């Protein structure tokens, strides 16, 4: 739809719903208006505002890869008012989507490098976009390693995709659950993500590390990467802060003078270290 109204969402039809973990769902969304689809493009790392009419908007990343055309996907946990309403919807329902907003993972700069993805819990979705983007351009990168952990086996999201990555000879996947979160047939690691990372002792040479997870995981992961010799500009993360607009006006998401919605959400550890502790 031709509009000058930056607040007017695209109408999206829920094409597919999958339940990825308790309270966690993934929607595959298709543009209702073919013109919108034709004009839309995004890059990995970007986010959007998803809305249920009558309830409101909620901010999350685009969890699918831009290499997969014709749809976008989002994964969310039923937690607040909007995600609860979203979670009640089914295939065929219409929701609103505004975006894409924010900056991107600089994957062009990562050509010829090893990639180490480190994710925890519900933070795999933003990373899933960049993982698939890189896997779809597999020849551009050297070794790809994914370390993913969750509280328990049930809380691991995208289980079928984890299996797919596990079976690929060109991906090394390490999964872990927090102590006590394992089941009797669990064959992965047991331990917190930073502990397992420490055990893995990844080589920093020619390697980019991408870290997404709850603040506590991130806090303990950075020092281990540092210990392994990763320079701050070789480590990336994506920040989440409460937002309403997504384009630098509503005044919520800034960390000091840095706007997560415009300057982020993707930041290198070098940038992060220059920002105040306000996220």
């Amino acid at each position: 739809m031709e509009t000058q109204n930056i607040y007017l969402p695209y109408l999206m039809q829920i094409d597919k719903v999958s339940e990825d973990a308790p309270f966690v769902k993934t929607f595959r969304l298709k543009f209702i208006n073919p013109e919108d689809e034709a004009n839309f493009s995004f890059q990995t790392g970007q986010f959007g505002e998803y809305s249920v009419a009558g309830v409101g908007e909620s901010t999350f990343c685009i969890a699918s890869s831009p290499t997969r055309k014709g749809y976008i996907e989002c994964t969310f946990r039923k937690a607040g008012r909007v995600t609860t309403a979203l979670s009640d919807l089914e295939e065929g329902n219409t929701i609103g989507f505004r975006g894409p907003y924010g900056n991107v993972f600089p994957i062009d700069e990562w050509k010829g490098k090893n990639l180490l993805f480190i994710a925890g819990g519900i933070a795999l979705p933003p990373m899933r976009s960049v993982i698939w983007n890189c896997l779809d351009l597999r020849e551009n990168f050297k070794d790809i390693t994914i370390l993913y952990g969750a509280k328990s086996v049930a809380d691991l999201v995208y289980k079928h995709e984890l299996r797919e990555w596990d079976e690929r000879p060109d991906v090394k996947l390490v999964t872990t659950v927090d102590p006590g979160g394992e089941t009797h047939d669990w064959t992965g690691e047991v331990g917190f993500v930073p502990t397992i990372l420490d055990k893995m002792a990844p080589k920093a040479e020619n390697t980019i590390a991408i870290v997404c997870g709850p603040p506590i995981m991130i806090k303990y992961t950075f020092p281990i990467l540092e210990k392994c010799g990763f320079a701050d500009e070789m480590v990336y993360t994506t920040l989440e802060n409460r937002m309403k607009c997504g384009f630098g006006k509503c005044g919520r998401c800034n960390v000091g003078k840095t706007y997560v919605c415009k300057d982020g959400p993707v930041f290198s550890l070098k940038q992060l270290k220059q920002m105040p502790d306000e996220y």
Partner: protein
Amino acid sequence: MERKLLTKDSYRSLITKLIGQNYQVVAPVKKDTMIDFLKISSFDEITEDYIVTVSSAKTVAFPRNEKLFDYEKQNKKLTQQDYDFDSIPQSVLIGVRPCDAFGFHSLSSIFCWDSIDKIYTTRLERTTIIGLSCNKADDYCFCTSAKGSPGSTAGSDILLTKMTDGNYIVEIVTEKGAKLVADFSDLFTADGGADKESLLAKVAANFSVDDVLAKINSKFEDEAFWTEQAMRCIGCGACAYVCPTCACFDIQDESHGGKGHRVRCWDSCGLSLFTLHTSGHNPRENQGQRWRQRLMHKFSYMPDRLNTIGCVGCGRCSRACPVDMNIAEHCMSIIEN
């Protein structure tokens, strides 16, 4: 700058004609004990008995609640009715103090940062601002500390300065102002050469916002300082609501049955829920951090990112504050500490 003269009788004629030509005329009106900007239907509703109005003039371009679009739900289908830009009226805003007029620069810098908020810009484009110089001020006023002055033309399309005989000096500031004067050229007469400066209120420049900017970044990590600054703050958000430059907003849905609209409404960084995550995590969890955000945004982030100042020295926040926090005093304390 071109000057003209507008007699008090011609001023009455001008306003009456504008109302007659279906302009939305918004002016300071006394309502109960408060003076605020309201739509008027007759010249007699206007008052000039104010230093500043309680709320700022920003409502004309950035109303407290703005319907962004309408929607309707039927079974699984959702339809949206886009914002009707044609519904935005041609407006004339009367009696705007120079501080308020200057405030539109700050607002515009936010609403036009990369992505243009056409709702805001169209409202402002369709508004002609007739400023009114200040012939009195009070202890809360500090425009001269914030790059303004009681007779500043910045932000106005036309600036009026009232003379002792009740007539007005007219300064034509913008093309929009010139057009309005041309449209009613018979009402404006030749400038009599009166001395504008002598008619203006005197506002002492007790500090400079540049000195606040020079100092405030180094105070960011000083938690004790911000805790002390915000000791009295009850986080009511009144300061943001009356502020001519505060633009922070919330987006909410209002629904009646299957129909409704998405609404943009004023919000405030001083409110405790402003940055609260659904997880319970809050990046600005105490009032000191929230007060720091308010001052940093106005005196550091906006100059740094948008090349403008987020405060015009109108003093409204200080007048409205229920616990008597005075922003000028807080600025001076930043400079001194």
